[in-house]
C-alpha cells in the first residue's frame, strides 16, 4: 500500500509529508520534518519527553500516529521563542538551571506552558501533579518546579 499523504500545521506553518502507518507523530517531526527539538525518551508514553500540543491538547507525540496529524495543528518547542526572544518559561529554566542533560526539557516546557494556559497561578502541588507525566533523571525536579513558578509569576505580571 502506498504511503499516506498528510498535510498538517506545525507552529503555524503548513507541512506536507508521506508516511507509513507505523510512523508516529514523533518520528515524523524528528525524521521527516527535521524538527528535532521534540525528544524521544521511552516511546511508550511514560516519560513525556515528546510532549507536544495537538489541536490545543497536551499529548505524547509517540502515542499519536503521523497519519492522525492530518488537518491538525501542532505546537512544538520550536514555536516557543519569538526570534531571539525566549519564552518566559525558557528564560526561567535557564535562570534556575532547570535543565541538565536537556532531554526532558522540551517536553517540560510544552507541558508547563499547557498548565499556565489553564491555570496562570498554579500552586507548587498543582505544578508537581501536572508534570507527573514528565520524567527527569537529572535535576531532582525542584529546579524545574521553581522555574515554572517564576515563569508563571512573570507571565501574570506582564498580563496585569
Amino acid at each position: 500500500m502506498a504511503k499516506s499523504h498528510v498535510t498538517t500545521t506545525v507552529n503555524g506553518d503548513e507541512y506536507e509529508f508521506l508516511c507509513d502507518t507505523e510512523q508516529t507523530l514523533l518520528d515524523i517531526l524528528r525524521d521527516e520534518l527535521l524538527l528535532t527539538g521534540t525528544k524521544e525518551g521511552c516511546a511508550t508514553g511514560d516519560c513525556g519527553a515528546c510532549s507536544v500540543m495537538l489541536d490545543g491538547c497536551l499529548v505524547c507525540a509517540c502515542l499519536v500516529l503521523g497519519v492522525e496529524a492530518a488537518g491538525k495543528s501542532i505546537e512544538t518547542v520550536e514555536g516557543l521563542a519569538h526570534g531571539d526572544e525566549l519564552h518566559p518559561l525558557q528564560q526561567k529554566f535557564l535562570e534556575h538551571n532547570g535543565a541538565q542533560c536537556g532531554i526532558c526539557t522540551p517536553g517540560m516546557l510544552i507541558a508547563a506552558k499547557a498548565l499556565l494556559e489553564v491555570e496562570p497561578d498554579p500552586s507548587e502541588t498543582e505544578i508537581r501533579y501536572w508534570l507527573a507525566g514528565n520524567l527527569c533523571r537529572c535535576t531532582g525536579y525542584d529546579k524545574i518546579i521553581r522555574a515554572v513558578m517564576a515563569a508563571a509569576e512573570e507571565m501574570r505580571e506582564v498580563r496585569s
Partner: protein
Amino acid sequence: MDELRYEAPETLDAAVALLAGADGDARILAGGTDVLVLLHCDMIEPDLLIDIKKIPELTGIAEEDGGFRVGAAVSAMELVEHDAFPKAWPGVVEGVKLIGSIQIKGRATMGGNVCNASPAADSVPALIAAGAIGTIVGPDGRRDVPVEDIATAPGQTSLGKGEILVSFLFPPRPPHSGDAYRRFTPRTEMDIAVVGVGISLTLDDGGTCTAARVVLGAVAARALLVADAAAVLIGTPLDEAALERLAAVASAACRPIDDKRGTKEFRIKVAGVLARRVAQDAYERARGN
C-alpha cells in the same frame, strides 16, 4: 511483514464493515495509549488499524433520557472538562482522572479502558457502579450490555468479531444519589491500582440507603460487582455497623493474585478499608444533592 493499513472511517457502518471483513488482525485505534504501545513493542502485528475518532457516535457527550450518553472514544480530558458530566458522576470522573498523566488523558478513552480489559483499569469500577450500559454495534446490529459484562478476563472481552463498543449510557440520577472512586497505589500519581473501589448510592430523604452498587477493581481477573456488599448498605444510614460489615464482605469477595504491587493478603485487607472510605465519600455526596 505486510504493510500496516490505516483506515479512518466516518460512519459506524463503514467501521463495522472494515472490522468484520478484515482477513488478518484488525485493531481498533481510539486513543492509542494501549494499542500503539503494543505495536511499538512488537507485542502485536496487526494488518489493519481502524481509527474510530472520526465517527460522531463515538466522540460525543450528550444528555439522553435524563442521563448521559458518552462516546466510547471521548478522551479522558474532554470528559473531565465537560460542563455537566462531572457534576452528575463525580466518582466516574475520579476514576477517569487517574488514567495516566495529563498527556495520556489527552488521548486515552473510557472505551479503550474497558476494552483493554485490565483488571486494574481505573475507570471501570466506577462505570460499573454507575450502572453504565455499553452500546455495542456489529455485523448483526446493535446490543446493549452492562459494562460489567464486557471484560471477561485480563485482555479478553465478550465482544464478537466485527463488534465495536460505541458508547456508554449513564442512567438518570434519582435525588440524593452520589458516587465515588478511590484506589490504593504506593505513590500518588502515575501508577497502577493495587486495589480500586467504585461505589454508587441512592438515599431516601432521611438518609437511609435505598440502592447501592459496590465494585472492586484489581482484586480478581476482572472488576467485581459485589451484590452482597451492596446488600449490607441498603436499609442503613451507613452507620458504623454497616460500614464494618461492608469492609468484611468486600474483603471476602476478593480473589486477588500476588504480584509486585501487592500480596493477596494486602489486597484483601485494603479492599475492605477502601470500600469503607469510598462508601463514606459517596454517602456525603448523596446527602449533598
